[in-house]
């Protein structure tokens, strides 16, 4: 199952690299990764989309927490949250295809950001499955190039102010519900 994990990291040299190194070194799946500033000047937010069973997910979150540069790690998957991705899609134009592409663009509430005699570039924003759908529909027209930003995500409602990470309580809570009786 796909999981979206939000990671607050120190905004300095190497923090991003450390996380990328962790994923490659441990052989964790990495579907997308994005990084940008937050409301706090020395903290960045990384949004990681990854895949794996519960045990792997548990490891990914604990390993992320273990890094000295990570301040908070949250698996958003089970939480009420919004996800957005942005795609730039460059499509080749042939006779008469312009109208059709424009229509599709309207349906997906995209923007036309560049146009030449032979090509048109549209910008689509939305949850990743909306972008997948748009790409599917546009494919037959001839997609010349595409760039996707990777997902950014936030929980809905009030933002959690707590930024200190806690290594143990979450996993303890989870585990104590699973306690078996001694055989």
């Amino acid at each position, binding site marked *: 199952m796909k999981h979206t994990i939000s990671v607050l990291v120190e905004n300095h*040299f190497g923090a991003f690299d450390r996380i990328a190194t962790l994923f490659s070194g441990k052989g964790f799946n990495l579907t997308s990764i994005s990084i940008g500033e937050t409301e706090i000047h020395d903290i960045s937010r990384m949004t990681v989309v990854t895949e794996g069973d519960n*045990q792997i997910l548990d*490891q990914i979150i*604990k390993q992320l927490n273990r890094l000295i*540069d990570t*301040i908070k790690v949250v698996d958003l998957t089970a939480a009420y949250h919004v996800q957005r991705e942005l795609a730039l899609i460059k499509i080749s134009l042939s006779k008469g295809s312009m109208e059709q592409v424009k229509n599709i663009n309207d349906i997906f509430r995209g923007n036309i950001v560049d146009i030449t005699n032979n090509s048109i570039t549209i910008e689509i924003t939305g949850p990743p499955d909306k972008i997948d759908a748009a790409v599917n529909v546009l494919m037959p027209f001839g997609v010349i190039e595409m760039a996707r930003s990777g997902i950014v995500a936030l929980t809905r409602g009030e933002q959690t102010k707590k930024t200190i990470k806690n*290594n143990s309580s979450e*996993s303890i809570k989870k585990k104590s519900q*699973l306690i078996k009786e001694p*055989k």
Partner: protein
Amino acid sequence: MKNKEQIMTGAEIFFECLRREKVEHIFGFPGGAVLKLYEKLYDIDYLQHILVRHEQGAVHAAEGYAKASGKTGVVLVTSGPGATNTVTGIADAYMDSVPIVVFTGQVPSHLIGNDAFQEADIVGITRPITKHNFLVRSIEDLALTIRKAFYIASSGRPGPVLVDLPKDVINSKCEFIYPDNMEIRGYKPTIKGHINQIKKAAEAIANAKRPLLYVGGGVIMSGGSRELALFARENKLPVTMTLQGLGAFPGTDELSLGMLGMHGSYWANQAVDNCDVLVSLGARFDDRVTGNVDTFAKNAYKIHVDIDPTCIDKNVIVDIPIIGDVKNILVEMTAEMPKAPDIQDWWHQINEWKDECPMQYEDNDGRLRTEYVIEKISEKTNGNAVIVTDVGQHQMWTAQYYKYNFPRSNITSGGLGTMGFSVPASIGVSFAIKGRPIFSISGDGGFQMNIQELITAAAYKVPVIFVIINNSFLGMVRQWQEMFHGEKYSFTDLSASNPDFVKVGQAFGIESFSTDNPKEVESLLDKALAVKDRPVLIEFKVVKDDLVFPMVPSGGSISEMMVKRINSKRMTLL
């Protein structure tokens, strides 16, 4: 107004920080990028710099120092090749959770990225093998970074930290401020165990029919050996130890089952296979311990105490995780025990296994064997020596036959399995431990991997007894070739190409002996043990083709444990 004396150069700040961190020894090797530091070092009397002959040696020495003393080991090397030579040692320290801080020189900041002379991206190279690492970008950050480095290396689950020091940072000046308190918002090791979890664990142990304590290096690192002994003795619990755990509990104690795992004792492995409550204390379910994880302690309710949350459920899913410092948790667990478990039958069963298949080796053909040598070293030192082994068959035999009395006495490369560890690590130990015998035990192969450090030993007159177990083979590899690779002894026979080890020792100015006669072992050990002010070397020429038993094949189950040679062609050698 600023106090003028507080303006210092980077080099001065560096050593002032080390002084405040109570560093007494640095293992290092100079070069261009750290010349300013060595210039300052020349006038410093509050710490001793030990000049090694290869930077890998410096790191292993610092590891030995740290493992034996519990203090943080410190390394200082130059940029580029000096830095890259530390990589194996850093990886070794990472795998075995050894607290060390490695300072590397770096080219001046403005040249970083230019392929400057002796430039290497050591921060990038060591990112996956350090607990954390830093590139100091300005002199204002220097003191705080050093402070953080020592804190991170030594707290929580210990590990190596690397600090990269560009030449211009060391050469510039700034006001010296040593932070008294320091907080790292992303780093808060959990020390105190969750009391409800501890209560549950205590209850499970008290009600167990066949409990077993599975003890790893974490108990030694936390300083919890005494607490472990109390807990085990009060409840008469059997104790088995991992390679790194040896010494956490006295090997001669009747509750000790010795080592478990691939080359563990028959009875320890049977106990793991049959226990109903397994209590892992500061161990990490390494594959050399578990073999096949699906069948490891398959019927046991598993309790796992560890300071590192990532260790929990990584290899084996457990029933009660307790995150925190194992020493504290042992104290609380002892207090929470409602009663001692009733396990006489279990002990009866364990003792039956002991009789069924005791540790034994051939000793009546007059030929010298490693097991005998180790047994004699154990007897002569009453289990009180610090034993620093290398990697291979001799390492496993030492683990099986040396009866460690004290924690921090078994210094070995477990996680990474680094040949060449023993010689430099034992030198490091000698700067931390005074008044106890120190043995470096290497194979003929591994001894040659950091052989250059013999001159460090000679120059500093370290009282280390260098033992070479010479079986004329890369023995452990030969063992796998015999057992699993069709007896194709591909590139493991050193008999025609080994040097004369006595002459080697003598060339380094070390008194050296050699024997292949079991009758001479004791007298040679006596002779060596009588020397207390300089190194001694003894080569023991042992049987070439012995195998380490018992053996659970890699990834196998306890049911596949082999206890003696099965190949009929080879049986004749037994």
